[in-house]
């Protein structure tokens, strides 16, 4: 017995040993997992930039990266799970979603520095995405699902972009692609805290710790412009990278000095514990060099000061780790000299406006005014040079653009379109199906001072259900995008600063600017009239039908008499039938016999045939009604 027990114990021991090995193994792999999870990184940055018109641009930049999803399954430490699921489910290659209130002032806040080319966005919601799906139909359905998911995630009416009337497929005007890009914009979307809260939810510390604590709602929304953005890129090598940025242009109460506390009514006391790096930058445009001290004074010792390679700007870096509750970070800038800061203009100032009056037709005009200092500096005296300008514009279907009326004026003179247009791609709008898309590459001579494009359009008339509740306010045409592919904005800073924000400045961003949103008033029908219109129209039709039938079958007295005498001689079919039936009931067969002797059996057959026919038709009708 004892030996048997010993044996069984031995066996048990062996089994448990063998069983234990896989446990060890899994523990080991778990260890690797945690190691790879640690690759999920989060960093938070804030860039403050005094603008030439004494406003302050606050640019929050949060980056989260997730390694390729195969290594860690469905689990995430820092990375927002909802976004990872979105990317996986809809096979998104690239996506950018922006909520903007106000318009970026290209003339005063800069137009060709990386910050403005990357972050200036059109008012309302703009969404574009590229998909990793094969066919066009698949992309369209995926886009529909994506808009609905984002709509739920960000509490916005992004789902309106699902309908084919509101999104378009630009080929090269927006971003070069091979038909896998979808673009949609909702210019009228109101942006407010309900969009910011879900956006903050994606941050690991939300707005409880770190730089995001500065996002005090009243201070942010009091600004002249704010734009919150979510940009994500996903590929098999690098996994998913999301950049969440929020840019706000704020007006300090004092024109000569401001501090972070004055701007945000909050101060930073600690960094977000989960962030890999947490920094605040102050960027001063223009190479002020040693003169800095004469013009402005930064209160608070910067950890590092760097200039970019071309000497366009100076960056002061503050590490949040150094600060604590007792010694919070509060950068203060004092202006000593009322000197205007320089800023980089775009080669052309683009604006768009409507021409014409009335609610029947009009024209859209895009005007380009060259910023003289800019072009002169680049091309002086050279005769045979051209500047390329790409115009991308999406027009809703109820603005029916006549593309053959495209006129291009250069310096006030009309030019043949063939001379100026280098490449053009037009998708005309289809009524109630798709918007019109215009992508156009133009080639202007370098010395050009101004150019204008005009397009005529007819205003459409909609069904009463298609008008929004405030129909008389008008309809918005989304901003057009004018980009200048010859001009690249990039800033290269020394590698000593390893910041995702400054790293993103290195990218070759094409200088571009969004134009104004246009408000097109459309004619409205009387919304209270449907019943009246239906009854009036039907009355007129009935009048026509009734009087016409009446005229056609009317007979005047003489004809009537003739017809009556005919009737007497040969009664109609139905009276004959009735009289026959009554006769049958009364049993007077002799009358019947002399009335129609020969025709009686024939008629009888006919009647039976007709009755059977009607019965068959009725049963068939009934049958089909029931089955369908």
């Amino acid at each position, binding site marked *: 017995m004892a030996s048997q027990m010993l044996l069984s114990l031995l066996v048990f021991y062996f089994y448990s040993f063998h069983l234990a090995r896989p446990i060890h193994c899994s523990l080991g792999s778990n260890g690797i997992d945690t190691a790879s999870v640690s690759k999920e990184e989060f960093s938070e940055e804030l860039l403050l930039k005094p603008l030439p018109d004494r406003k302050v641009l606050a640019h929050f930049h949060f980056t989260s990266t997730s390694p390729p999803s195969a290594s860690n399954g469905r689990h995430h430490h820092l990375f927002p799970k909802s976004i990872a699921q979105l990317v996986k489910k809809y096979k998104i290659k690239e996506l950018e979603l922006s909520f903007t209130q106000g318009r970026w002032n290209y003339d005063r806040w800069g137009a060709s520095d990386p910050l403005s080319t990357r972050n200036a966005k059109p008012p309302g919601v703009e969404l574009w995405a590229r998909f990793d799906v094969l066919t066009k139909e698949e992309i369209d359905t995926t886009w529909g699902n994506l808009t609905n998911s984002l709509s739920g995630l960000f509490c916005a009416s992004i789902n309106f972009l699902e309908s084919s009337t509101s999104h378009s497929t630009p080929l090269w005007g927006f971003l070069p692609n091979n038909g896998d890009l979808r673009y949609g914009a909702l210019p009228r979307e109101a942006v407010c805290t309900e969009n910011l809260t879900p956006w903050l939810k994606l941050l690991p510390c939300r707005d409880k710790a770190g730089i995001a604590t500065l996002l005090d709602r009243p201070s942010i929304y009091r600004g002249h412009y704010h734009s919150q953005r979510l940009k994500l890129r996903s590929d098999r090598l690098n996994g998913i990278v999301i950049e969440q940025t929020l840019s706000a242009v704020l007006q300090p109460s004092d024109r000569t000095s401001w501090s972070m506390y004055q701007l945000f009514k909050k101060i930073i006391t600690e960094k977000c514990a989960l962030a890999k790096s947490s920094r605040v930058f102050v960027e001063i445009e223009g190479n002020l060099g040693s003169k800095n001290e004469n013009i402005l004074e930064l209160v608070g010792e910067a950890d590092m000061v760097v200039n970019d390679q071309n000497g366009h700007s100076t960056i002061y870096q503050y590490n949040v780790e150094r600060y604590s509750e007792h010694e919070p970070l509060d950068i203060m800038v004092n202006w000593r000299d009322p000197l205007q800061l320089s800023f980089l203009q775009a080669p052309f100032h683009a604006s768009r406006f409507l021409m014409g009056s009335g609610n029947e037709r009009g024209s859209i005009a895009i005007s380009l005014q060259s910023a003289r200092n800019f072009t002169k500096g680049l091309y002086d005296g050279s005769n045979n040079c051209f500047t390329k300008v790409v115009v991308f514009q999406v027009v809703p279907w109820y603005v029916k653009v006549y593309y053959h009326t495209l006129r291009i004026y250069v310096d006030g003179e009309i030019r043949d379109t063939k001379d100026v247009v280098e490449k053009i791609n037009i998708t*005309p709008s289809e009524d109630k199906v798709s918007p019109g898309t215009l992508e156009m590459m133009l080639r202007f001579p370098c010395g050009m001072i101004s150019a204008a494009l005009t397009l005529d359009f*007819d205003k*459409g008339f909609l*069904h009463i259900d298609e008008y929004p509740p405030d129909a008389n306010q008008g309809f918005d045409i989304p901003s057009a995008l004018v980009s200048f592919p010859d001009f690249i904005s990039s800033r290269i800073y020394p590698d000593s600063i390893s910041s995702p924000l400054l790293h993103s400045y290195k990218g070759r961003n094409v200088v571009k600017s969004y134009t104004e949103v246009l408000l097109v008033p459309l004619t409205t029908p009387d919304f209270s009239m449907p019943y009246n219109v239906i009854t*009036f129209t039907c009355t007129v039709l009935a009048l026509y039908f009734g009087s016409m039938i009446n005229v056609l079958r009317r007979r005047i007295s003489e004809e009537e008499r003739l017809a009556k005498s005919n009737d007497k001689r040969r009664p109609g079919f139905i009276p004959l039938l009735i009289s026959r039936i009554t006769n049958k009931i009364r049993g007077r067969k002799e009358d019947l016999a002399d009335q129609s002797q020969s025709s009686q059996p024939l008629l009888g057959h006919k009647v039976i045939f007709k009755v059977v026919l009607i019965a068959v038709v009725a049963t068939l009708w009934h049958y089909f009604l029931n089955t369908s």
Partner: protein
Amino acid sequence: MAAAAVVFRLALVFFPGDLNLGSRPEVATPLSSLRRLAEGYWLKQTSLSPYAGSMYHGSPLLLPVLGPLIVNRYFILPQRILLFVIVDFISAILIRAIGQKLFVSNRQSMNSLKLSGKKKLGMNENAGDVASLIYLWNPLTIVTCLGSCTTPIDNFMVILTIYGACSRIAPLAAFGYVMATHLSLYPAILIVPVILLLGHGLDAPPSKFFTRNTRSFSWKPVIYFIIWAIIWTCYALLLCSISLKGVGGLNEMFKKTYGFILTVEDLTPNIGVLWYFFAEVFEFFRDFFLIVFHVNILFMVLPLAIRLKHRPCFLAFVYVAIVAMLKSYPSVGDSALYLGLLGLFASELADMQFSFFLFFGYIGVTLLSPVMHNLWIWRGTGNANFYFATGLAYACLQTVLVVESVSSMLKHDRMLKKLASP
């Protein structure tokens, strides 16, 4: 007089101020607007389908004919209009020829009824001249001609059909019929009067008035007509498919032309009533009413054909008038056509009722409709309902005109009978 009409047109063309008639909703409909044709032509030039987008809804055959004329900068406005002036002039000549043929046949039938001496009938030898002058001098025709739209061509094809049928030239009638149907679909119902014209001959009192039946239905020209119609249809479709080769097929063409006509997609205001009706009607009933409105045209085809089979020319006029009233995108050009044809029957319809009311009604509507449109669209002070009201009034006037003309034509026949059977 005819030359004067042409000169008047040309004078108006060279009128310094821009009348901008091409964009009037009364003149140019989405189907006939030359601006849309220019867009279609431009799209085709850029190797897109002319039907891409929802701009052009006309025939692809018009594009190579009219397109270069419009888009080319070397043709200024008068040269563009010249084509339409010529087309109008030819139409008037054809109307005159129809009138003369009608008069000849009328005199023959009167002779055979031994009524030619009766003064009461007041046969008008100049009916053709009157009709052609009415057509040429009608302000609606002039406006249509100058207003750069394709309606003069549509009207010309309809007149050509009737002329071809009147003079029993089957190929010509078939050509006119096929082209008219191809351009605007509705003239398809003219097949009934055309067959009657070819089979029976021109308008005459009902055959039962004659003591011996001289007129019998001859099938030969009808069969010729049908064969020619088939040939022309194939030819037109072939040309269309060649024209649309590589940029879109015939299916797309049918969808964008006939489909566009039948589904009333464009709700731009015009002088009809359907645009406002379909802008307001509940989406759920839309299909039902579409069917009702279109069937309303077809409903009257048979009763009218039975009652007026002895007067096929008049029957054609009634059909044209009904179509002008009930079509989905009506314009004043359609009215110009039937008003011109009305002149052919001036003597038969001499004692028509309400003619004073109709005359001033037409004048009133044509004056009020642009005013209401201007108030609503341009000044923003009016309301859609005012403009719609002029459309309703116009529809009522047309109803009265059609019904009264049919009624007085029937009365005229009765009178003939009374006189013929003493």
